[in-house]
């Protein structure tokens, strides 16, 4: 038994020692824990860890195989996302014990706080005392055993799994119901209790999902597809878009869900132009070699930065919304171009990991596909707070797309209309967020950059929080961003457009003198290298492309992403449809598109008189509309508008 004394060492030092001791197979006791956070985070060795006293937040979080004993209390989120292994807590547990566990056994001898087992996928959470309110909130699987009483709204919006309560059940949550306990299950519960030396009560009430909210009553009707240019309509009040919308709602009787981005005119990067005449900028065929474009993102706080060949990344898009083949093609295409790919919500596949040169791993509120092993092999981690297409809302993945294979990687039941939670269980404010960021850093030894994805809403506040909470970079997504499925009302009516979002973000950082404390990656309806350069001039450190990459890789913009029967094999999980997609071919197409972006960035940068993209600045821009001038504070120079139209052969 090796002792680690937290009166002598910081938690960071202790966790580093724990990992080494874990590899050596040593048993460890932790002395003077004094309720400090993150004890044991990221340990992936089958050792025993005895905490002599109380632990703080996320004790044993993001671990696999280790067996923890805590003699006294634990704070929020004990055993967060734990795979196998166990935690036995002698005293009480704070809120969200066993959050997002994927197989671990967690035993609380005392009482446990609210939202126990939130978004858990598998494993057992057992509480010998009473549970506070909303135990089993949004659980996707596994089992919760409560020997005392349970608080209000047990099993609120659980989609699978079982909750056994020996004491009184105060009331049931939405879409939860009481059911009979069969003898086999009871036997299994008794065996579990026996294994942990807990006296078994006589009987249990069992709570499961009632199945009334797992699927929409009526599926979204596939309609005659209207191409994007038609769909977007124009100034006509009753246009084909409105007509289609009404027809669909006349069938479904609810709000519409659709894929793709906003389809209404908004102020955008096309409303600003370059001050200089760039008509000659494209003449030099060798311009790419003459402009420094290599960019590092994420290294400002000492983590290993992403090293991208130009200030461009792939925007986060999930395996789930997109097919495995598509994610594979994007990974290959991004590697060919020397830029970074992003997993989006749905977890990381081996093929994607191997193909992508650099891969950002995204963590969402449902913790779908999230785990310590993939965190370790990621090049950056990203906490998703919201996205430009639907700020404040969770994801929607229709049943058609929730195949057994996809369900497996996400750790959820297959065939449900998956509505990913819009909030993280353990991030209810900037104060919790800082503790979460620290947990990720502990889990990865402070080596991997941590970013935050923000949909443009309350940008000024959000961006300041991002800087204060110590993120390495922020991915800011404007209203023109797309989604695989979202409410059409929200896509078109909620959010802040990308152009004012960039301006407000930069202003906010300057207000608190923090422009150098965090890097800014901008996305949301950026189409090409011209848009990229404009965003860079306005102050972005890099940009990200989503839709244009999908289009480069074969998307025909039919806007039926949510249905799951994408004819190109992109936005589908149907193997027959996916067969049509040729990842190698599309990877080359994506790569060629990215090279065109590179050329545009180089040519414009050179045309503006620089040899380094870092030199791009606001003074290179003018506003082409009064509205854009108001938004950006750039000089309104309408005569430039005409000249700009001809620039670069791109309709800007």
């Amino acid at each position, binding site marked *: 038994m090796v002792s680690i004394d937290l009166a002598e060492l910081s938690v960071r030092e202790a966790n580093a020692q724990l990992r080494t001791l874990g590899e050596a197979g040593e048993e460890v006791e932790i002395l003077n824990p004094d*309720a400090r956070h993150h004890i044991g985070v990221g340990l992936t060795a089958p050792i025993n860890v005895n905490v002599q006293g109380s632990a703080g937040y996320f004790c044993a979080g993001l671990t696999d195989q280790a067996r923890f004993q805590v003699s006294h209390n634990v704070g929020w989120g004990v055993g967060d996302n734990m795979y196998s292994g166990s935690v036995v807590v002698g*005293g*009480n547990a704070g809120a969200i014990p066993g959050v997002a566990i994927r197989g671990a056994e967690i035993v609380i001898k005392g009482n446990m706080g609210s939202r126990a087992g939130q978004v858990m996928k598998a494993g057992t959470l057992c509480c010998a005392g009473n549970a506070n309110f909303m135990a089993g909130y949004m659980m996707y699987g596994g089992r919760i055993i409560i020997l005392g009483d349970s608080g209000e709204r047990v099993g609120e919006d659980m989609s699978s799994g079982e909750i056994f309560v020996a004491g009184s059940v105060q009331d049931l949550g939405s879409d939860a119901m009481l059911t009979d306990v069969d003898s086999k299950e009871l036997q299994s519960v008794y065996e579990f209790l026996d294994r942990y030396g807990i006296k078994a009560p006589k009987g249990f009430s069992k709570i499961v999902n009632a199945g009334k909210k797992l699927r929409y009553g009526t599926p979204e009707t596939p309609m005659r597809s209207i191409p994007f240019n038609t769909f977007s309509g124009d100034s006509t009040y009753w246009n084909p878009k409105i007509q289609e919308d009404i027809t669909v709602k006349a069938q479904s009787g609810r709000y519409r869900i659709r894929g793709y981005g906003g389809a209404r005119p908004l102020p955008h990067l096309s409303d600003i132009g370059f001050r200089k005449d760039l008509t000659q900028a494209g003449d030099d065929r060798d311009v790419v070699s003459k402009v420094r474009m290599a960019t590092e993102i994420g290294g400002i706080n000492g983590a290993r930065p992403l090293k991208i060949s130009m200030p461009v990344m792939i925007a986060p898009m999930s395996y789930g919304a997109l097919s495995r083949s598509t994610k594979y093609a994007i990974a290959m295409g991004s590697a060919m171009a020397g830029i970074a790919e992003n997993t989006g919500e749905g977890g990381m596949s081996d093929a994607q990991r191997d193909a992508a040169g650099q891969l950002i791993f995204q963590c969402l509120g449902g913790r779908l596909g999230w785990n310590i092993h993939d965190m370790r092999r990621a090049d950056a981690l990203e906490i998703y707070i919201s996205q430009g297409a639907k700020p404040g809302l969770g994801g929607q993945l229709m049943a058609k797309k929730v195949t057994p294979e996809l369900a497996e990687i996400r750790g959820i039941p297959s065939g449900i209309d998956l509505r990913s939670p819009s909030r993280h269980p353990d991030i209810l404010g900037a104060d919790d967020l800082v503790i979460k960021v620290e947990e990720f850093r502990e889990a990865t030894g402070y080596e991997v950059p941590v970013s935050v994805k923000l949909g443009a809403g309350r940008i000024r506040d959000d961006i300041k929080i991002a800087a204060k909470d110590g993120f390495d970079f922020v991915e800011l997504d404007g209203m023109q961003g797309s989604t695989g499925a979202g409410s059409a009302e929200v896509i078109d009516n909620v959010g802040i457009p990308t152009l004012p979002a960039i301006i407000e973000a930069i202003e906010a950082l300057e207000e608190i003198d923090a422009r150098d404390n965090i890097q800014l990656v901008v996305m949301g309806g950026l189409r090409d290298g011209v848009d990229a350069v404009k965003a860079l001039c306005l102050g972005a450190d890099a940009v990200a492309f989503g839709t244009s990459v999908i289009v480069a890789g074969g998307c025909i913009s039919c806007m039926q992403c949510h249905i799951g029967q994408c004819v190109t094999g992109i936005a589908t999980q149907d193997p027959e449809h996916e067969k049509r997609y040729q990842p190698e071919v599309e990877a080359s197409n994506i790569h060629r598109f990215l090279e065109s972006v590179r050329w545009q960035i180089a040519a414009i940068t050179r045309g503006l008189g620089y040899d380094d993209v870092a030199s791009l600045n606001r003074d290179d821009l003018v506003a082409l509309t009064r509205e854009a001038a108001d938004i950006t504070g750039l000089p309104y120079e309408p005569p430039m508008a005409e000249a700009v139209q001809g620039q670069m052969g791109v309709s800007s």
Partner: protein
Amino acid sequence: MCGIAGVMYRGSDATFGTGEALIRMLDGCQHRGPDSTGFALYAPEASGRLKLRFFIDPESETDSDVAIAEIRQRLVDLGAGIEEEARAGDNYRVTILYDGDVQKLSYEMKHAAKVISIGTSLDIVKDVGSAYDVDDRYHVNQFHGTHGLGHVRLATESDVKPEASHPFWATGFADVAIVHNGQITNYWKMRRRLEQREFEFTTDNDSELIAVYLADKLAQGVKLQDALSTSIDDLDGTFSFLVSTGDEIGYAKDRLAAKPMIMYEDDDLVAIASEEVSLNRLFPGKALNTREPAPGTYATWSRSI
């Protein structure tokens, strides 16, 4: 966005190191709010006397002299006798003999200067920086008394300024202070109701609203615990807050349990904080039998007299 702490020692001699205790507790949860730190400290009351504390602009010595002269003049005009005064950090602190209407005095002074607190026993010390930074400037560690509250803040919706930091004093009422973690979403509705009854506010901060809401109830003779009970019904949003008066401290927690709060009680004291790590700062190396208040609950503790 913040961390909160409160402590009340049992016993009546008021020689407990409440300042030091709160410094340690706040240092323990400084990660929750690195921008500013504040303390509401209670000393035994001196009868017929009021303690007032003001922010004075640190930029210019002349301006601050003018500001202090104006405060003094106003006080004299209101019939107050100035008994003791001092500059401390960016504060001007004055003890007055006053037997008039405290609300009138508060509003008059609020219009003339940046009032931090008014009380017979309350003194609020708050500024930008960490618990130890603020202690360096204001010597909070030398403060003794029976009880007090503390707050660390991560500024989100307003600026990092001393006057935007917490705790908040219930503008217009002596001795009521609050520390709050969360966000009151029916803030404007509640504020308009109080403003219709001619209460004034110094800031747009939702914590000040809670303080005034509770102080108003107390002034009407409602017991603190009953005022806390109605606050859970009347306030909408996420909150875990602590309130203190000259004789009591109490907490209330919203029904969503979105904001953490944990407490420890023994024969010598009751201590409440956002996180157990703060409580442990009072008892290094000791595993504590703590308790997490349930959602939608409240409780109060009284000072031994």
